[in-house]
């Protein structure tokens, strides 16, 4: 009996405390936070080779500048600078006082979009169906989708398809659309697809090794018998601020021969972003996948248009959206 009591006591003593099985948390100091950011990126970020970035050298440059007593703002600025060497709009750092992000994909390029100009000279008495601005310009259907964050409902698409029935063509304007939920793009693309086609291929990072990737996943999309679709030729308008989910939407529509991409190159964003937390509660996002078109073209740095058109300063002064004008002309 004594033995059993002893045994129970031992069991109680062992199981009443789990502390030995949890190692201590990493300390919350600038050096540890920088190191965890660096090593997480080192293990999981996907574009080092594609962008020819030596992440070790980035560490060699910035790690010595991290000091134990430095302020949060100084640490944030240092980490922001290190992360921006990746030239990736999906890489950002968030703290309670600032959010950093890379803006090089659009900042040094012509804007090629002005909604006020559109509204004043082209859109007329437009409708806003859910998240989709839509109107008819010279017997051409025009749809403006400003953000993939805003949901597209099947009912919205049904309404617009019905409204645009019999028109010569459709223009879909996703300039300045910086992304959101790709599922909205899939819902839209199914209404444009003529048949099921291979749209792009994706690989994810699957481990910390440089060559640890998942098997290539070929993505397909096609029409559904459930819903009506647009039967007209489509022109998709893009610019450098067409990013992330809008970039994927462009890649998707590029697979269809009756779609023409017009305007400027998209800004890119070809990796699915995911976020990670630091011991100090800051949070950073980064790309985890590479995607390429069926012909092997990587979409991370943007997708070139089929027809490149730019809006000049003079066009803006005369109230002309040259990209939209070119799209309208292509149907005449």
């Amino acid at each position: 009996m004594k033995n059993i009591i002893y045994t129970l006591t031992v069991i109680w003593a062992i199981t009443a405390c789990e502390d030995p099985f949890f190692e201590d948390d990493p300390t919350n100091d600038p050096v540890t936070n920088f190191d965890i950011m660096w090593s997480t990126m080192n293990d999981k970020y996907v574009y080092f080779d594609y962008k020819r970035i030596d992440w070790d050298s980035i560490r060699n440059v910035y790690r010595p500048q991290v000091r134990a007593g430095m302020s949060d703002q100084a640490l944030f600025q240092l980490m922001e600078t290190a992360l921006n060497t990746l030239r990736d709009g999906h890489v950002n750092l968030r703290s309670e006082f600032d959010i950093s992000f890379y803006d090089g994909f659009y900042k040094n390029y012509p804007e090629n979009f002005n909604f006020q100009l559109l509204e004043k000279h082209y859109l007329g008495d437009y409708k806003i169906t859910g998240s989709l601005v839509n109107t008819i310009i010279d017997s051409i259907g025009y749809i403006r989708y400003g953000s993939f964050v805003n949901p597209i409902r099947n009912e919205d698409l049904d309404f617009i398809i019905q409204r645009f029935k019999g028109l010569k063509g459709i223009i879909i304007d996703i300039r300045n659309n910086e992304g959101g939920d790709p599922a909205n793009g899939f819902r839209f693309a199914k209404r444009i697809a003529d048949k099921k086609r291979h749209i792009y291929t994706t690989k994810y990072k699957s481990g910390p090794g440089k060559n640890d990737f998942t098997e290539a996943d070929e993505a397909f999309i096609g029409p559904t018998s459930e819903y009506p679709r647009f039967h007209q030729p489509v022109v998709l308008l893009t610019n450098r601020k067409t990013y992330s989910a809008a970039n994927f939407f462009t890649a998707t529509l590029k697979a269809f021969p009756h779609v023409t991409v017009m305007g400027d190159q998209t800004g890119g964003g070809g990796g699915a972003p995911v976020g990670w937390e630091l011991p100090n509660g800051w949070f950073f996002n980064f790309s985890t996948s590479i995607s390429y078109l069926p012909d092997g073209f990587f979409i991370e740095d943007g997708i070139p248009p089929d027809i490149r058109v730019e809006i000049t300063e003079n066009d803006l002064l005369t109230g002309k959206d040259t990209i939209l004008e070119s799209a309208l002309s292509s149907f005449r």
Partner: protein
Amino acid sequence: MKIINVHFEKQLYCLGLLIFITVNSFAQQGTGNANHKNTPEKQRYLISSLTSKRLQLRDQHMSPVTYFGGIIAPGFGMLKRKEKFFSEFSLNLALGSIQAKNGTELRPMRGDYFRIDMQYSYLRFVKNIANQRFRWYVGGKLKSHANVRLNEQLDTGFITFIFTNGLSLSSALERDINLFGRKMTLSYQLDLPVVTHVIRPNYLNIYNYIDPENDWLEERLRDSDWLLPGKFTSINSQISLTYPIKAGNMVRLSYGWEYYSLNNKLKARNASHDIALALLFNF
């Protein structure tokens, strides 16, 4: 980043196994009659319970630091006892919040925590031991466990989870004691896993949402693993005091300790201390 003392954990599992064997060895040395005379022929109870859990959780998918939380878990179940065995089914749902120590109001490191545990145990009476004072049972347990955390501040990585389905070995000792003039039952039960099927997010805590035809569940099952102790170590230990009230009904007060760890690509640790109060309705 290494966050877990794996070596120590293996020792824990071995120690648990040793205790399991030791308890059973002591039991085999007992002189008691193999016939279990203390339990009426057949008893059935519906169980309604409320558990207060204090947990700590370290999951590399979620954060490099440990999250803590207090959660409340209502549950129900059924207990069936016969002369030679007892079986128990239980379902517990838990809802609460977890947070890390470094969080602040402007920089919250917090999340919502949801958990479901469903288990069925079947233990057969082996013999009375230690001069008939203890009843010794051995059996197995099927256990499904799901815990999901939603950390809003983690953006696209805001959902992390662990789903496990497994088979465990169970051993229990029971003893009747007299307290306040009433006969009560004191029991201790220890569970150790044999094999466990574990479903987790992938290495990046992301699903392939850029493929319109991707099936989330299929993807998760593809990433799932059957794990043996060492890769998935789990120990459940529970001490209960069951007190008869009126009309054959009973009250059960339990203290439980649970620990599990996952040692594959992205590691996770979970430990909780539970205090549960259950009403057992005889029917």
